[in-house]
């Protein structure tokens, strides 16, 4: 038979009460915060996963912001190209009409003025701005890209933005490739860190990891704009073309106008191609935004599973624990303060 002493009874009562109360306290805290985790040690693995998800979610909302910027830029570029196509189309119509001998010199002089107006219009499109930045001046976004003679003052910079993890898109066309019809720069979108050879070490390793996704993304991202713009190298620039038309009109030279027709054709086709490509980049950006949204929902769901407390389970646990504690109090009341001496009277 086990011997029971006063102290062993108190000790065991104290131990059980303490245990139940600390359990109760833990549940209470979970109840007030509605989180199943309050400290990393509550569930180290889930804590890390939750933190990673927070990072991804934050990155995603940044990527969405980037996508907004990219779309703004791309849409304005597309609109500008559309207007430009209209102008060139109109000029081409004029050229077709004036390439025959029907019209006399006076008429041609008047038409020449119209063409000059078209050129001015094209110039104003070339110097279009979004906010404070010029869209066609490459990296020199704060400088007017074209002067009144149609000379290009910008550079060949291609601005890229990251609109999804490791998904870079080129968001601008520089004035040269649009108006001068020549593309010297390589428009492949490369990883930004490749410009920094000192990072080569880490690049090498990460490349292996992401080779699939990066390659795929770049395929979509890079092919749209100006990949084979090089073949238009021979064409004249747009302002020159309009100038030539105006001069030919002034000179009343239908043969010359006739000669220009083909160039106008090429120019219009080229602009249409550029436009389609800008459009397809914009649509890939939008698709990506949708992917990010879907991704965010999944992430929130996962995070909630990791961090949030199961309310039903929690409150039934609390009720149960309260009952246990009550019983423990009741039974210890009987054990304490009662001994043989109370009955020896």
């Amino acid at each position: 038979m086990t011997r029971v002493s006063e102290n062993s009874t108190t000790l065991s009562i104290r131990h059980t009460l303490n245990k139940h109360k600390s359990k109760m306290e833990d549940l209470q805290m979970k109840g007030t915060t509605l989180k199943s985790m309050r400290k990393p040690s509550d569930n180290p693995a889930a804590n890390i996963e939750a933190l990673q998800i927070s990072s991804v979610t934050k990155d995603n909302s940044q990527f969405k912001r980037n996508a907004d910027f990219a779309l703004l830029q791309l849409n304005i570029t597309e609109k500008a190209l559309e207007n430009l196509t209209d102008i060139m189309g109109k000029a081409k119509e004029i050229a077709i009409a004036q390439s025959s001998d029907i019209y006399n010199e006076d008429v041609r002089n008047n038409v020449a003025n119209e063409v000059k107006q078209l050129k001015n219009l094209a110039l104003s499109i070339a110097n279009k701005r979004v906010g404070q930045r010029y869209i066609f001046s490459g990296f020199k976004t704060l400088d007017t890209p074209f002067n009144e003679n149609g000379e290009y003052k910008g550079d060949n910079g291609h601005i890229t933005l990251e609109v999804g993890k490791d998904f870079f898109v080129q968001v601008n066309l520089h004035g040269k490739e649009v108006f001068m019809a020549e593309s010297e720069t390589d428009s492949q979108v490369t990883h930004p860190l490749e410009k920094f050879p000192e990072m080569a070490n880490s690049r090498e390793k990460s490349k292996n990891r992401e080779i699939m996704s990066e390659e795929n993304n770049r395929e979509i991202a890079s092919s749209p704009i100006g990949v084979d713009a090089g073949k238009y190298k021979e064409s004249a620039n747009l302002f020159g073309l309009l100038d030539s038309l105006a001069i030919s009109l002034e000179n009343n030279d239908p043969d010359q106008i006739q000669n220009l027709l083909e160039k106008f054709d090429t120019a219009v086709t080229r602009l249409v191609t550029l436009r389609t490509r800008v459009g397809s980049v914009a649509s890939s950006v939008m698709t990506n935004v949708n992917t990010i949204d879907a991704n965010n929902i999944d992430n929130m769901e996962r995070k909630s599973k990791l961090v949030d407390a199961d309310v039903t389970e929690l409150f039934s646990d609390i009720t149960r624990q309260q009952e246990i504690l009550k019983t423990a109090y009741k039974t210890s009341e009987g054990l304490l303060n009662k001994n043989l001496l109370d009955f020896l009277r």
Partner: protein
Amino acid sequence: MSTRLLNIANTGLNASKKSLEVTSHNISNANTEGYSRQRVHQQSNMPLIKDGLITGSGTRIKSINRVHDKFVEKKLRDSQSNESYYNNRAEQLSRVEDIFNEIDNEGLNQILNNFFNSFRDLANQPENETVRSVVRDKAQLIVKDFRRIAETLNEISKSIDDKIMISVKDANQHIDSIATLNRKIRELEATGDETGDLRDQRDLSVKELSKIIKIHTYQDERGNYNVQSPGIGTLVTAAQSQKLGTYVFGKDESTNGQDGSMEIFWASRSGQQITEKFQGGSLGAVIKVRNNDVKQLKEKLDQTAYEFMNYVNAIHRRGYVNREIQTDVNGNPVSMDNKGPTTGNNFFSAPMKIEGAALNIDLSDAIKSDISNIATALSPNSPGDNRVAIAISKLQHERLMSGGTATLEEDYLKTVGNVGLETGKAKLDAEQSEGLLAQANSIRERISGVSIDEEAANMIKYQHAYEAAAKVMKTANEMFDTVLSIKQ
């Protein structure tokens, strides 16, 4: 004849009285910590041969012993050491863990993330001054948070230093009292009997000492009671004690690489430092947290800060400042203007060495003085060029750490994970060791603790025996009277 009867009754009376005294002593000490209940050993007296008959000669109290099990006592002591070790470890580690807790508020991981995203935002509109100042603010937050973590870790180390000093003082007191009690017990027990109360007090001191450090006790062949700590050596031999001392050391001689670190020595042999030899108990726990866990975290944090600053700087230096840069006669951009260098600026002030990088992290003077020094462009006079900004933002997903196997985030989260795991483990161990201690305590109290019920029953028993013995005396007295009345 009647005299013998009177004598025998007298021994019974005395024995019952003594037993009642012991019962009373037990009841009085029912709540005394570390008290072991005492029991009388009653024995019949030597029988005598009288008139050819062997007859009894009453009773006597042979000894008063405490009820005690030294193996239970040893188990209790070890459980105490363990419980104290794990509880202290859990307590210190949960302080460490709080530093890395990002569940409710923003911690370093999210702040780093914000920093990279601010560079992404800057890449969207590199011309924008406001975004530039946002980038600088976010960078400032990183500086603050690295410092917060480094400083809090230092504070934890410092508070452990204080704890070490107080613990050593406490330990010395217990060592001293054990030695003193050893002497007193030897003096008292020279007469042959065991002194239960003093032994209880010594056991209590030993138990208190085992809360601070892990100890073993044994009695040598000459009856000397010794206390020894594994890894350290003998603390008490009979009445002799070896005390410990603490001294403050500078960074280079310290065991945890921090200035003002508290180190432990033998008080009598100041040459030999024994800080890291302590095992178990609260002292072993806090030393381990300070010299292993906190120290490693600090090193890891320094490493992270160092790499982070260097990588950001390496890219940033290649960029050009965001203002009009004049060109010289050959058309090359000038390298200096009235606001400082036009390229080659560091973003963070370049760290001198890995050690202390987290504590000394700061923005470079160029960035502090003018936000146009935040470079986004890889070519001069290109306000729309965002290549540097994008490259810096991409550092977030690069495997820069641990020899190119982990990104900054993965590496940092691994550290957070380890802290969580260690703390969780310590908490679990603490809970378990608490249970074991409660069990050991309960076993000890079952054997040695006072039961009021039992004492009450004994009281009745001895009281009755006393009454009966008194009755016998009365009878003897009446017998005397009878004999005396014959003569009248």
